[in-house]
């Protein structure tokens, strides 16, 4: 166990397991850079630290820049270690987007992991750029009107060697992607969907089921883009045919944050998902 038990994560939060699965692959020679997020609380409690690898806490907008500096320092000392940025969706897609884009453009030799819980959960569920259409947050009480920002595609457009999406329900697929990313030189980006029981308004026991449904309904396709080559992985390989995908309503109805969505809005979301898969079919 690389991340020790008794940490401050909420019951049912998948973040400790996600970090543990990451560290199982990258090993003891890893440096984690954590910008302000839920993980800052999990890692930075006053009584101690659950992580057995070094953790550098950073300001919201600076994590990729700090990781670049750490990697340069390690290189000059001829130390071979993996530098991983472990950031939330706000620290990736909203506040940290400029420095993320900068590090991707310079093709820094770091791994960037975004765990996406689709709002600012740590400060009390405020909307972020990555909150999906129709979702309730405290700042969008009637549901968000705008669509989710496509960060994996934005990073892939920088021409970085490796971009992937992953899900905690498909843990072997996730670890295989981390393993592949570890071997590659240059900027590697992995986007993880991380269900949040208090913020998404569901019972803490359903975390894995909801993560699984996100993939099965096609809302969260699992893919990797290696040197510009797109490839679906794991269960998503079988979902190109529309009849194989479950209706998005099955994913939405388990979560209280979507309870105010009308049937028309659900239809709109379903259409968006179907259009996205048609585009995937063209690339594949």
């Amino acid at each position, binding site marked *: 166990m690389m991340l020790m*038990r008794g940490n401050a994560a909420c019951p049912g939060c998948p973040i*400790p*397991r996600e970090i543990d699965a990451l560290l199982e692959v990258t090993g003891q020679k890893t440096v984690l850079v954590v910008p302000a997020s839920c993980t800052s609380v999990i890692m*930075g409690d006053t009584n*101690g630290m*659950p992580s057995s690898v070094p953790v550098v806490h950073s300001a919201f907008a600076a994590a990729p820049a700090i990781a670049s500096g750490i990697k340069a320092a390690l290189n000059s000392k001829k130390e071979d270690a993996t530098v991983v940025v472990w950031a939330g969706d706000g620290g990736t897609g909203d506040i940290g987007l400029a420095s993320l884009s900068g590090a991707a453009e310079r093709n820094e030799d770091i791994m960037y992991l975004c765990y996406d819980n689709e709002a600012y959960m740590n400060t009390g569920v405020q909307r972020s750029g990555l909150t999906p259409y129709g979702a309730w947050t405290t700042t969008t009480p009637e549901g968000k009107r705008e669509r989710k920002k496509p960060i994996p595609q934005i990073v892939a457009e920088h021409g970085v060697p490796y971009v992937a999406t992953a899900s905690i329900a498909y843990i072997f697929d996730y670890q295989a992607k981390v393993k592949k990313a570890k071997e590659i030189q240059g900027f590697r980006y992995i986007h993880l969907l991380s269900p949040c029981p208090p913020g998404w308004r569901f019972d803490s*026991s359903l975390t894995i089921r909801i993560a699984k449904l996100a993939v099965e309904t096609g809302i969260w396709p699992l893919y990797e883009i290696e040197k510009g080559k797109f490839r679906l992985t794991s269960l998503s390989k079988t979902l190109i045919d529309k009849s194989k995908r479950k209706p998005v309503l099955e994913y939405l109805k388990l979560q209280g944050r979507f309870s105010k969505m009308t049937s028309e809005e659900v239809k709109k979301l379903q259409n968006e998902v179907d259009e996205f898969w048609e585009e995937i079919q063209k690339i594949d």
Partner: protein
Amino acid sequence: MQHEYQYFPITVPGKGAGGQTGTWRFVRPVVNLNKCIGCRACWMFCPEATIHVIDGKVEVDYDYCKGCGICANVCPVKAILMEGEDQ
């Protein structure tokens, strides 16, 4: 100049950084060892790493288990039941 109160703000890794998180629990997972087939699904998905598999059977660390219920939900043979702490 060295003062006595100067120190490096570094924490060391250890169990229970958030306290004894077992006290957060409302419901506790109870494993029916006759039903358990040792598939390790609960061990794989437990976010707290409080589940151990010893000789193919499951054991829960109740000092740190937060009682989220993920293990009961992912168990394919329903060998784990969530029981109220007051019982």
